[in-house]
């Protein structure tokens, strides 16, 4: 067996042997599907629609589910920094690029899996509880974004954590940014011109069916902006780890 699959297998076993790690993507799917279905069931009959935009309704639960995905991305590498287990990993897999690449690949794969199951579940939950038409022309795009968004988010968070080399610092930056700064200030005129380019804002736009006149980019471009952030964070994380090898 060659070195690359070995490094990936090691990362996979690291994931499955640590409960606090593997429960987070499961929790994310549960929240993504559960919150959509619960809110749909609570409001569906009375109000008909939680929102005019089926994308916002279907992915309502993702607002909760993404919290677990952020935690997953940070923990995946952050717990190795904070326990200094990263040194053990690096003696086992001395090529930093290979070690980090294996982690990125696992993060992306789990992100895609959680995205696929979460999106399918969220659509099913929405369709079962809200008598609205979710088929629209934007369906294919929103569903694609629903699969990709969690994967980008996990890889982005992993990259940022590698950049800091510290779990606590990464959590401290990412949690308020993704959950407070971005959604709250993203709607404030004068600030949204800048905040609309934050990765989560941009990526979430692709989940929506309706156009937002306040945004200067389109739905697909939004997803591309998030992909760019993700690539930058992933690369920056690697460079930072290389630089920290004094």
């Amino acid at each position, binding site marked *: 067996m060659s070195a690359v699959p070995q490094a990936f297998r090691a990362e996979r076993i690291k994931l499955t042997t640590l409960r*606090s790690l593997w429960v987070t993507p499961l929790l994310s799917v549960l929240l993504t599907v559960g919150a959509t279905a619960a809110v749909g069931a609570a409001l569906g009959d009375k109000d008909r629609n939680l929102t005019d935009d089926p994308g916002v309704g279907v992915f309502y639960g993702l607002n909760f589910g993404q919290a677990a995905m952020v935690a997953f991305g940070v923990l995946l590498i952050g717990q190795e920094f904070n326990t200094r287990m990263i040194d053990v990993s*690096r003696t086992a*897999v001395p090529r930093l690029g290979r070690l980090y690449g294996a982690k990125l690949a696992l993060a992306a794969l789990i992100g895609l899996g959680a995205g696929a199951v979460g999106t399918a579940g969220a659509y099913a939950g929405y369709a079962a509880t809200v008598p609205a038409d979710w088929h629209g022309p934007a369906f294919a795009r929103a569903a694609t974004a629903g699969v990709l968004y969690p994967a980008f988010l996990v890889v982005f968070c992993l990259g940022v954590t590698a950049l800091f080399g510290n779990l606590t610092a990464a959590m401290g930056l990412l949690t308020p940014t993704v959950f407070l700064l971005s959604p709250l200030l993203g709607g404030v005129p004068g600030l949204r011109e800048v905040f609309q380019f934050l990765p989560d804002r941009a990526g979430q736009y692709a989940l929506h069916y309706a156009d937002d006149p306040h945004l200067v980019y389109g739905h697909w471009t939004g997803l591309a902006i998030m992909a760019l952030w993700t690539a930058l964070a992933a690369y920056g994380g690697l460079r930072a780890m290389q630089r920290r090898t004094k």
Partner: protein
Amino acid sequence: MIEIQGLTKEYDGRRVVDALSFEVRPGVVTGFLGPNGAGKSTTMRLVLGLDRPTAGQALVNGRPYAQLTEPLRQVGALLDAHALHGGRTAQGHLRWLAASNGLPARRVGEVLAQVGLADVAGRRIRGFSLGMRQRLGVAAALLGDPPVLLLDEPVNGLDPEGIRWIRTLLRELATEGRAVLVSSHLMTEMALTADHLVVIGRGRLLADAATSEFIDRHGRTRVRVRAVDAAKLAALLGGPGHGLDAVEAEGGAWEVTGAEPERIAALAAANGVVLYEIAVQQDSLEEAFMRMTADSVEYRAEAAA
């Protein structure tokens, strides 16, 4: 084997490892000694490619660590027994390590049995004592059955039984033809375990010699004497004119450094002092080490002040 050639490491202009050269040969337990902060752990990190040397190189079986394929089959290392995630089981921790180097899964059970952790294989590391973590760290080092072993302070936190266990294990591993480098600040332990000593202070090589040779060269010989009439002995040795380096010890005994017992006996006889004890004492490794590294220690005390 490990070859360290002119290894130098600077952190922010501070030289931690200074032109260090030595070899760790197969079939021998090499003890790596030095006061805290002497650069032992840094040297080990450089050997493992965790830090980059400022100058010089460290070769493992002829190659830099980073170039080894499946390195766990060539070098086993224990750096820090705490550097693991407490949420994993002992077995889980070793399973990912084995997979990372394509080692068969059965090795996990084998090394856990070898270090005496078979009964707690399925328990989370969180509940392990420091001694158990050390054993797990040793298990991880042995996983790939490597010809080279590098252990940083492995006896830390071990109980007397554990210390005896690791001493026996290290000796066995060397007997099997492996190169074993083990750092410790416990001199007496090293005296019992190591065949060869590499002593460093302030990052510099102070000694590279067989353990017995090191004690012979750096340990002083003292002659301990006791007389029937303690006052007469004190008057003799405490007074001037005999040219001996003598100091009074407890209970009326005196210790004379750097003189043959015959000369002391003759001196006593000539002065009518009746001796009833005359014993030659060799410095322990600890004493030899303390004297040898005194400079480094003083330097550190100055720097801290």
